[in-house]
């Protein structure tokens, strides 16, 4: 038997509460200081906020194929350190996760690592090439039980193919997660198109290239009665379209990344590729609109788009650099800083947008559940009063490409429990808790 008694945690930031975790289940929830549990390890959680284990609908674990950038092992360690208990692993590996074989491989690597649940995302099209549907059914029925399909990194730009994908996934209660980027409007694009790109002489990635695809896709989704998820929404205009679609009753959900809630294209002025990401950093007005959209529910959840890259992929001139930023280990602090401390949302909302809703969208069983008796013991204890100067060199991910290097961010993940096992203790990974290869 493994048992933990968490004492006096502020449940969703509210009243001090005791939680008893026994054999992977939350067996008792009671008023703070009222529980005794002989034999259980006691976690003093005074001042800590208890959240359900975080769920990332958008992670790049890079394995198979780009183990120099990240592995399932290192990526899930980063996830655990960031307070996560489940991640959706995007399909743009090498080979692409477009068959039952590859998604089962990734799923199996996740099980072996044991830090979080790894839910592979299946590619929508073969090889992410946007030409032919991948075997969505085989992936859905595989051991990986894929429910989310995405060509992320590429847009399913062909409207007929997108329509068919939306129709086809209805048979599996699936969802198509679209990377909304009209390819012709973004050929050679390097950064947000606007005042800064004009001055810097970098080819622009216009907001309309995202908005046009979202507009098309919500209409297609309505037409065929399917379910659409929009990855990494980055513009104020996209928010308007989503608001309109939701008001019409379209079954669409949307995510925003932490970096689009905090950073703007002004950071590109020194041409440091650590700020190169797709979709690109936008303007302060977009950041404001995205924050408001999370607050009013137009944007449903936070997706990190954690995209680790080897150092040399960023140690070069802007145009040659890879796109993407790490995010798993900084997501919660950025959300606290951008949304909680600004008074836009509460900790209960954090639980909704970073756990319950993404788990529902990706159909992850046993994740995103309330912190209540009888529920799986996936939870995170965060110290909201802590302050951390971000140092990517100490991160568990292989990627050092964090745009927050040197930045002071609030909140620190102290303890994480995944299926009742402690994966993080006092902010550090607990290696005995997993079956992971010790040397990895």
């Amino acid at each position, binding site marked *: 038997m493994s048992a933990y008694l968490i004492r006096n945690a502020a449940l969703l930031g509210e009243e001090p509460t005791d939680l008893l975790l026994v054999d992977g289940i939350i067996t008792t929830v009671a008023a703070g200081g009222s529980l005794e549990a002989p034999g259980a390890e006691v976690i003093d959680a005074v001042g800590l906020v208890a959240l359900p284990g975080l769920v990332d609908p958008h992670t790049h674990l890079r394995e198979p194929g780009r183990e120099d950038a990240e592995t399932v092992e290192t990526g899930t360690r980063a996830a655990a350190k960031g307070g996560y208990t489940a991640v959706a692993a995007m399909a743009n590996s090498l080979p692409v996760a477009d068959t039952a074989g590859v998604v089962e491989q990734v799923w199996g690597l996740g099980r072996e690592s044991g830090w979080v649940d790894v839910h592979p995302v299946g590619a929508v099209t073969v090889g992410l090439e946007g030409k032919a549907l991948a075997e969505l059914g085989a992936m859905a029925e595989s051991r990986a039980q894929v429910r989310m399909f995405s060509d992320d990194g590429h847009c399913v730009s062909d409207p007929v193919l997108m329509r068919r994908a939306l129709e086809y996934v209805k048979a599996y209660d699936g969802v198509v997660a679209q990377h909304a980027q009209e390819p012709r409007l973004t050929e050679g694009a390097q950064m947000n198109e606007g005042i800064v790109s004009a001055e810097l002489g970098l080819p622009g990635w216009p907001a309309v290239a995202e908005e046009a695809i979202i507009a098309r896709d919500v209409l297609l989704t309505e037409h065929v009665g399917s379910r659409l998820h929009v990855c990494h929404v980055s513009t104020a205009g996209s928010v308007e379209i989503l608001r309109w679609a939701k008001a019409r009753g379209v079954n669409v959900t949307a995510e925003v990344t932490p970096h689009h809630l905090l950073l703007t294209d002004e950071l590109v002025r020194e*041409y440091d590729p650590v700020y190169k990401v797709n979709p690109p950093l936008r303007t302060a007005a977009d950041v404001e609109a995205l924050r408001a959209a999370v607050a009013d529910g137009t944007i449903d959840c936070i997706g990190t788009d954690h995209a680790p890259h080897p150092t*040399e992929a960023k*140690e070069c001139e802007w145009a*040659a650099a890879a796109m993407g930023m790490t995010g798993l280990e900084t997501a919660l602090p950025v959300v606290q800083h951008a949304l909680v401390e600004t008074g836009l949302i509460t900790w209960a909302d954090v639980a909704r947008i970073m756990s319950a809703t993404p788990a529902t969208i990706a159909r992850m069983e046993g994740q995103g559940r309330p912190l209540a008796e009888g529920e799986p013991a996936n939870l995170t204890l965060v110290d909201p009063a802590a302050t951390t100067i971000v140092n990517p060199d100490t991160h568990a991910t292989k990627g050092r490409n964090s745009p927050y290097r040197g930045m002071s961010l609030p909140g620190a993940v102290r303890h994480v429990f995944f299926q009742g096992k402690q994966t993080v203790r006092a902010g550090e990974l607990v290696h005995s808790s997993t079956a992971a290869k010790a040397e990895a």
Partner: protein
Amino acid sequence: MRHLLDTVHLSREDAIRILDVAETMSDVSGREVKKLPALRGRTVVNLFFEDSTRTRISFEAAAKRLSADVINFSAKGSSVSKGESLKDTAQTLQAIGADAVVIRHPASGAAQRLARTDWIDAAIVNAGDGTHAHPTQALLDALTLRRELAARAGVEPTGRGLDGARVVIVGDVLHSRVARSDVWLMHTLGARVTLVAPPTLLPVGIETWPCDVEYDLDNALATGPDAVMMLRVQAERMHGAFFPSVAEYSRRWGLNEARLGLLTPEAIIMHPGPMNRGLEISAAAADSPRSRVLAQVANGVAVRMAVLYLVLSGAPSTEGA
């Protein structure tokens, strides 16, 4: 001045200082022995990731007239677009003791990367990066125009800006590092700049630039500019649907003979070269007495001498980067 990367961050004081030193250097170029010992023992590397014989020989002549050792490093054709080699190349130049690196690169921001990283300590001079900046071209344009204005007023150019001058810049602004550098430098020096181009060849976001924007060349010429600068337009832009045909471009935005007649008697014509005769500029305009194209080339050497001298002499100044 530690580096010269763009003109946006160049102060008026520094810009005038460069132009004044360039006037002095110009005198050297007029002598029989065109050589100063100023940079003896210093090493200047011309690091060219893009073909540009004109710019390279201009920098080479400038460095040699100051007695510097010159190394020409042509990196074009190797795997340079693959990123890491910019760092490797920079570290190699650091190891061989380069004091100044003149860099030409197809990627916007490449000069900034060299200046802002710890890859190399040398002074960095931007000789054109992507569609971002070409500060020495802008400086030679300013030198050319300043002389013209001074001669007209019967005064010495030294110590002056371009105050009150009106400059019209015509062509592919979107893809032009020259236009970007000219707009900011000439604005800093007090000139009023009007950009003229088809709307497709103006960047989204241009509204914050310190200049006017006009689609109609005849309207712009009717304001009586002191100088008209024609930018090179690549015929291939037609394939990107930037304009319907070379003929239409030439009719609407080319400096043809009829438009020459709209200019005031003193107005000069400039072009950063190489010219596309018959496209953005007619032979009549290119060869007219108003043309300052060859003066620009000569002034280019003087300006580059001044820039190399200032970044390598370590003279204190405001942040000129």
